[in-house]
């Protein structure tokens, strides 16, 4: 019996480590670009950047016991190659844990990268997005960038 428990305990420990946090999100950002966004009317190009409102997307980390890392990446190829998407954290939300980092804009690429970290449960973490690279060279169309957030 004792020998068997020694075999079981490592598996129990593994199961405990796998108790990953849950992540939910809310809020997409839609930016419409018109002639009103020319930097100084006819003869000028589009303004250099576009920002969402603060908190356009909120994240909630639940069921977290211990430290976690919030990572993000762009997915899908429906964005324009000239356009770069940035994200930053504008509030830490609320909850029992802590949160740090991510308050400066960070470029989202197709590779996962940490944008901030924290511990325990946090709800209502506010995010803000920014677009750069839009110009009159970007043809009229609707472009999409899916943002995948992962908590680890």
């Amino acid at each position, binding site marked *: 019996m004792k020998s068997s428990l020694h075999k079981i305990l490592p*598996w129990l420990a593994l199961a405990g480590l*796998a108790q990953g946090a849950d992540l939910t999100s809310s809020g997409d950002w839609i930016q419409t670009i018109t002639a009103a966004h020319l930097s100084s009317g006819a003869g000028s190009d589009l303004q250099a950047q576009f920002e969402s409102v603060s908190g356009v997307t909120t994240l909630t980390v639940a069921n977290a016991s211990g430290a976690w890392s919030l990572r993000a990446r762009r997915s899908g190829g429906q964005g324009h190659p000239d356009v770069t998407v940035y994200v930053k954290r504008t509030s830490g939300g609320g909850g029992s844990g802590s949160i740090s980092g991510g308050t400066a804009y960070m470029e989202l690429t197709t590779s996962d990268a940490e944008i901030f970290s924290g511990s325990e449960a946090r709800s209502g973490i506010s995010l803000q997005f920014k677009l750069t690279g839009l110009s009159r060279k970007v043809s009229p169309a609707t472009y999409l960038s899916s943002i995948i957030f992962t908590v680890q």
Partner: protein
Amino acid sequence: MINKTKFLAVAILSAGILSLSQNAFAGNTAEQVVTYEVQAINELSVSAGTATLTVNSATAGSAPNVATDTTTSYAITTNETNRKITGALSANMPTGVVLSATLAAPTGATSGGKLALSTTAADLVTGVATLNESGKGISYELSATSAAGVVPSATKTVTLTITAG
């Protein structure tokens, strides 16, 4: 006893795997979409709203001298291709009087040269594509024949339009 222990081990191991599986489905990822819609932009402006031309002189034996105004210019932004700039008058000129316009072409486009204006749109610039430029010259020219006689002062509105070309 040995058989019972193995059963216990299998049961606990299964519970651990089930727990792992449930966490995976609980979701440690979330997705949001950033959408940016670029609408067609075709903006054109002129540097001044008024140009004044007066025909009031002639060389004896010749038609009245042509009046020219080159004081205005235009600025243009478009994010579309295959555009052109047309010009049209609010009302036709009197008989014997001609108002013409010449627009300098922005980069990559072609000026239509000096064209008489009327209520029918004239293609002043063609081949315009995805550009933003300012200070492109506009030249107006007013000519009149002797037969037109004395024409009272009048105002005409010239409308420049970016359209599909």
